[in-house]
């Protein structure tokens, strides 16, 4: 947000700018002040910096300072500013418009500074300038200063900075290649021809060699198999036209033959743009039209007059392009049907294959996550792809698992490795190089600058990656505010996460158990395939479960409840969840109940010498709960289930057996009660006294009816004749 102070400063700068252009004798003073304001302005004060740069841009690039001498004398002053904004601020999410202005300013001052260096050598200044120049040249043709996606898509991104870079490259080529003595009509044509052999550091041969390489590089990009966006194509053509005039002997033939040979139809569409057929068709149409205009200039301005053969070839090409444009108009511009003939298709197919060998597999191959979230770390597809908005967590787990397994089976190892490497690099980048988002602890480092972003030497595109967030400047601004350069030199430790409160722990545990039951119970089916069983066995051995079935999860949960948690309250919480699950359908879940209660019993007695659990222990408590919840709802058809429960519960005492009293006293279900008692009397001798005690109690109970007393009496006579 712009503060009042900033607004006032902005107004003052605008006034100063006006004064400098109206009275150019003030220019030097105002330029000095503007540069010092810009150098002293933090990077987050974008508007102030932009205003300063706009003034310098107008003075040098737009030549609002008419005097060549004045511009030339003052040009050296911008070196410090460019060094500050491009090199020193490289790590701080450079603003796109600032960088574009800087490139333009370097373009407008490069020849002027060069002239100053020729006349008044200053090696330090030249070295500084060369650093800035080399850094910018190394960014071509990446998406600098935007973060990269992939080489082909990046050709269509950051067009404004790219075109500024092309113009800068044109300027460097012009300055660093020797001027032709025969060309005298170019105003202020500064070149390496001006360097004296005795110059202390400017070496004609080195500079010329760099310029020749840059020229070759421009032709390489032009001749690339991938279709260039029109903005880029026309800018290179425009730059070539300038060099064609200024340094003809270095490019005339190549340039003329390129114009003649250019065929948009043979260019292949960027890999991830192929679906945008209309856009691609329009780009080809525009590039062809620019080619036609250049041919027209060469034909009509006398460039080809000396070579009739070449002129004829150009005329043929011109007519071909006119016919092609007419055909296209007649077919309709929206008709995007593939009209390539077989030969063209074959050429394009070969080109596509060649490009695929270059290992460009994903749209977003950036090694730096665009923001600090998992989506940014894992996203390898187009950022505006609708799939990025899809919430994968809505897909059921088993479907998700199938999808992942299918994908893993189909994907090539190379693609998988590349994808994982990109994700890994992004993760490492976030965890090792940043910053305030993690709000970690600052640990001063003895290794100065260890936190500084490393150049990604292994970046396969030869692009220096940068820290840049697409979400604007806020993050970088916070960084700027929070730390100065010195503070950034150190290691960060990711902070320890906040400990859960006990209440939260309970809530989370209940949630885990609920999810466990919900996800596992109904969906796990017995799988009889041998291979699957063997895989299962390996994993289940660790759990001491022989084979995974529908009830296995009960075992896992019950063990977790009885022995897995150190905190009693949390164990109880889990027990309650398990018990509530059983309670919902006790009859059909009796196996689980028995298993669980056995686990409870075992865990209670395993550290004691006896077999008797504590009266108020978990086993006795939940046995009582179970019987209380089961008995009232039993009917005579549940005989097998109930007797099984009574027989398999590992320990019974008087209090538990007495719960059969209500069953025995119920006229409708008393048979079930007595059958259970009979079973216990016959097959569980340890509880015989308690069973007989219950029968005696019921016999002596005044509230018992005659039929109940008679039944009790019969059993007592038989099993306790005394």
């Amino acid at each position: 947000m712009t503060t009042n102070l900033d607004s006032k400063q902005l107004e003052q700068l605008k006034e100063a700018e006006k004064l400098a252009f109206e009275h150019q004798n003030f220019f030097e003073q105002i330029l000095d002040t503007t540069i010092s304001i810009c150098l002293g302005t933090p990077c987050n004060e974008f508007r102030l910096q932009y205003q300063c740069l706009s003034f310098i841009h107008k003075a040098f690039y737009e030549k609002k300072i008419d005097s060549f001498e004045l511009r030339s004398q003052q040009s050296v002053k911008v070196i410090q500013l460019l060094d500050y904004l491009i090199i020193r601020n490289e790590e701080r999410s450079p603003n796109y418009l600032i960088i574009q202005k800087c490139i333009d300013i370097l373009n407008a001052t490069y020849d002027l500074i060069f002239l100053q260096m020729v006349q008044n050598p200053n090696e330090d200044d030249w070295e500084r300038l060369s650093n800035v120049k080399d850094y910018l040249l190394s960014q071509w043709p990446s998406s600098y200063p935007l973060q990269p996606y992939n080489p082909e898509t990046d050709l269509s991104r950051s067009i404004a900075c790219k075109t500024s870079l092309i113009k800068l490259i044109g300027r460097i080529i012009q300055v660093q290649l020797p001027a032709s003595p025969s060309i005298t009509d170019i105003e202020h044509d500064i070149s390496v021809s001006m360097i004296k052999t005795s110059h202390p550091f400017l070496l004609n041969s080195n500079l010329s060699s760099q310029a020749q390489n840059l020229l070759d590089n421009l032709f390489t990009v032009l001749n690339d198999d991938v279709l260039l966006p029109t903005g880029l194509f026309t800018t290179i053509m425009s730059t070539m036209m300038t060099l064609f005039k200024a340094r003809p002997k270095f490019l005339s033939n190549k340039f003329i033959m390129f114009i003649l040979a250019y065929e948009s139809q043979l260019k292949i569409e960027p890999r991830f743009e192929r679906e945008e057929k209309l856009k691609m068709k329009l780009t080809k149409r525009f590039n062809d039209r620019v080619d036609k205009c250049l041919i027209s200039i060469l034909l009509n301005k006398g460039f080809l007059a000396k070579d009739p053969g070449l002129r004829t070839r150009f005329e043929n090409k011109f007519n071909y392009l006119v016919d092609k444009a007419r055909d296209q108009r007649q077919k309709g511009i929206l008709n995007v049907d593939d009209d390539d003939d077989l030969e063209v298709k074959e050429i394009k197919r070969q080109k596509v294959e060649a490009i695929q060998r270059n290992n460009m597999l994903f749209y977003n191959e950036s090694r730096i996550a665009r923001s600090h979230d998992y989506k940014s770390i894992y996203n390898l597809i187009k950022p505006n792809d609708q799939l990025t908005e899809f919430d994968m967590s809505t897909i059921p787990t088993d479907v998700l698992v199938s999808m992942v397994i299918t994908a893993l089976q189909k994907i090539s190892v190379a693609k998988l490795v590349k994808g994982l490497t990109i994700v890994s690099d992004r993760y490492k980048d976030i965890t090792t190089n940043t910053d305030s988002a993690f709000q970690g602890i600052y640990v001063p480092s003895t290794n100065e600058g260890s936190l500084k972003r490393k150049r990604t030497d292994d970046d396969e595109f030869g692009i220096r990656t940068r820290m840049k967030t697409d979400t604007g400047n806020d993050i970088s601004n916070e960084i700027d505010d929070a730390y100065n350069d010195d503070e950034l030199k150190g290691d960060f430790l990711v902070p320890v996460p906040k400990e859960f409160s006990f209440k939260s722990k309970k809530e989370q545990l209940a949630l885990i158990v609920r999810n466990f039951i919900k996800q596992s119970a109904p969906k796990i089916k017995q799988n009889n395939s041998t291979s699957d069983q063997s895989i299962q066995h390996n994993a289940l051995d660790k759990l001491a479960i022989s084979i995974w079935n529908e009830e296995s999860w009960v075992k896992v949960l019950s063990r977790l409840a009885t022995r897995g948690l150190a905190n009693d309250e949390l164990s109880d919480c889990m027990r309650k969840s398990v018990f509530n699950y059983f309670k919902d359908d006790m009859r059909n879940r009796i196996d689980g109940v028995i298993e669980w209660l056995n686990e409870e019993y075992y865990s209670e007695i395993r550290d004691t010498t006896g077999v008797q659990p504590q009266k108020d222990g978990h086993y006795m408590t939940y046995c009582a709960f179970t019987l209380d919840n089961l008995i009232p709802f039993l009917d005579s058809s549940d005989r097998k289930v109930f007797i099984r429960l009574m027989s398999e519960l590992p320990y019974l005492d008087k209090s538990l057996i007495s719960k059969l009293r209500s069953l025995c006293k119920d006229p409708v279900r008393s048979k079930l009660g007595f059958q259970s008692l009979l079973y216990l009397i016959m097959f569980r001798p340890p509880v015989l006294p308690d069973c007989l005690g219950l029968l005696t109690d019921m016999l002596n109970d005044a509230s018992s009816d005659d039929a109940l007393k008679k039944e009790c009496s019969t059993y007592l006579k038989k099993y306790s004749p005394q």
Partner: protein
Amino acid sequence: MEAHKVLKDAGYTVRSYGTGTSVRLPGPTIDQPNVFEFGTPYTKILEKLNTQDLKIHKANGVLDMTKRNISIKKAPERWPYYNQPPQRLPPSEYPEFENELDFQVVITCEERCFDSVVEDFFSRNYFEPSQTQQPVHCFNVEIRDEHRSALTGAQAILDLARMLSDAHAKSLQDFSAPPFEDKIPDIITEWQQNHPATPLLYALCYH
């Protein structure tokens, strides 16, 4: 000129030019066109038309068109070709423009005119290598030279201008948005889909 009027009414800073050698209007007969030099005031053109068969000029719309043009600018002007004598109004007529090529966007209405303008810019790149650094986005919106097409064509041009200026304004306000120049191919594609009968051309030139 219809496009000039529509763009001016919409608030854009506009200048309009012809690219031919002179201004040609239908005359009393098909083999006697009215030919005027660029720079001839529309009032004088109207005076001449008034001396001819008014029925014909009313029927072919030339009279109305000239009256409309009087309300837009003083006289027709010629594109400021490199190294050619100027045939345009004095700079005082256009205080908003710093010079004769002070444009961000040039829109032509015939492919022939587009070629002339683009070739002129390339010629400047060649003949004035130290002066050609300012980018200008050139478009051609093909419009047939008759009244009805001029009306629909002017609206199509206004659509294009709005799409471009909206994107430009947004890129200056929202730094997280893609830069303006990166959006141009998508804007062109969208515009072309909306105006399938008007084939577009585009080039990024420098002066």
